[in-house]
């Protein structure tokens, strides 16, 4: 079962997830090395592949606020992590859906590092505390993009349909 590998406070900015000084690095294949770079120990564990795919970062309110840099999503997607947060900033949410990073809005979520989380279709179950939390549905507008597996595939299909 997925474990919580990092539990964070409110208002985690994209400067924290992917510091601005690495913005010259753009390719999704190259960005993961800088994930949470200034959280030195966590960054080292990520790079050492200490966490299995599907591991979860839990955030508070307004996760991913700030810059529109897509690197903040590709860097987490590179390790196949999931984000469960009480609320998520608009551009980060949109970028995550566009890139296929798993994001879950869960207003009541309480979890600490090491907890076992099960993410179902509409709930999040914390097996370590026995508590179950409801998810907020992601914007319906984005369903087509999620179903296509991301915005690149979605746009490609639209292009082909247009001929």
């Amino acid at each position: 079962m997925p474990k919580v590998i990092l539990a964070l406070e409110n208002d985690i900015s994209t400067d924290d997830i992917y510091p601005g000084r690495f913005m010259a690095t753009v390719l999704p294949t190259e960005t993961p090395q800088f994930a949470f770079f200034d959280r030195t120990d966590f960054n080292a564990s990520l790079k050492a592949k200490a966490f299995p795919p599907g591991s979860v970062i839990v955030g508070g309110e307004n996760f991913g606020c700030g810059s529109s840099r897509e690197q903040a999503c590709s860097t987490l997607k590179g390790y196949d992590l999931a984000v469960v947060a009480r609320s998520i900033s608009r551009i980060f949410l949109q970028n995550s859906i566009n890139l296929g990073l798993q994001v879950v809005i869960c207003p009541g979520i309480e979890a600490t590092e090491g907890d076992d989380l099960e993410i179902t279709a509409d709930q999040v179950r914390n097996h370590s505390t026995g508590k179950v939390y409801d998810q907020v549905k992601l914007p319906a507008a984005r369903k087509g993009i999620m179903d296509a597996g991301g915005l690149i595939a979605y746009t490609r299909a639209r292009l082909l349909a247009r001929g």
Partner: protein
Amino acid sequence: MGMSVVEKILARASGLPAVAAGDVVEPKVDLAMSHENAALVINQFQEVFQGTGQAPTVWDPSRIAIIFDHRVPAESPKTATNHKKIRQFVAANGITKFHDVRGDVGGICHQILPEYGYVRPGFVVVGTDSHTTSHGALGAFSFGVGATEMASAWALGIAVNIEVPATIKVVVSGTFPPMVGPKDLILHLIGLLTAQGANFKVLEFHGETIRQMSTSGRIAICNMSVEAGATSGIVPGDAETVRYLREEAGVTDAIDCVTPDADASYVRTVEINVSALVPQIACPHMVDNVKPIDQVLGIPVQQIVIGSCTNGRLDDLAAAADILRGKKVAEGTRMLVFPASSKIFAQALDKGYIHDFMRAGAVVMNSGCGPCLGVHEGALGDHEVALSTTNRNFKGRMGNPTGEVYLCSPVVAAASAITGVITDPRKG
């Protein structure tokens, strides 16, 4: 039921008689702006076309703007190579609204777009930068997107599947006291709304104070609307918008101001009277951690920054120069000034402001993002404190996670440069 200004713009751009908050629409894009991150957009754009048998062609090269600003001149071979790659793409695709690293037409993207008349009232503008909210100052619906979403817009010419945002009406009345202005208003509003108070929503600005405000001030408030989480800030186009576009941007073709219906529906109305407002400071490490200046007076500052897309315009430089003229920046404090565009730099030279800054001991830097995002120049040392007219103070923003950034107006920054501690310009 009536429509808010953004609902009206989205209805028109989507070819629909009416839309309401929550509807899903696909508006035509009037302008698509990127900066250095066009390097990533190009990558995603080429990937979109892979396997389609179609050549990667942008939908309309005249509607794409690319401005180099974040790291100019390049601070590393990597950035220089990104610049080079983008230049080649621009040439190959015939993109005309391109602003290279130049001392005549260069500058920060959010200054260049209004300055060159690229944005008009009623436009739908997307930009790969969160402060794309700035262009609401000209009555456009203008919002930030990621690089892949921009690649999609470059290919299709529309913003795919977006939800019409709800609108918060902000009504501002009263007259600013001396040494208090638009920056203090927007900091105060962000403190009131909180950093996510307007997430997924638009801030639509009204009231006599806004009507009398210059476009420069409007850009500052729309610029920082995103710090309350807003999708966009917007000042419905009016006489000042037309004046700015005609007189300052040299626009000669028709300008069509879109205004909200009288019976538009808003999720919330916020009323602010600025007549008794005092200078506001956003304290580390969140933009909504806003305090009146008397609560932070006397804090020692090692770096003063005046500039950015928020407060690097001519009126900002004039106000700061008036305070610094004939004075000296305090020992132990360094002051950095970076005008928002080359054009503003030249105007500030002509007016003598640049000399005022230099004689006071400030370092005047080329136009661009400079120290604002901490990648290039003006990084903080360990545990140093900056007082800055920029728009973000997140941990690490000025290049050092142990540094602290306070945000303020240009007059607070200038008064504090002389003393080396946070100082009230009304008493200086």
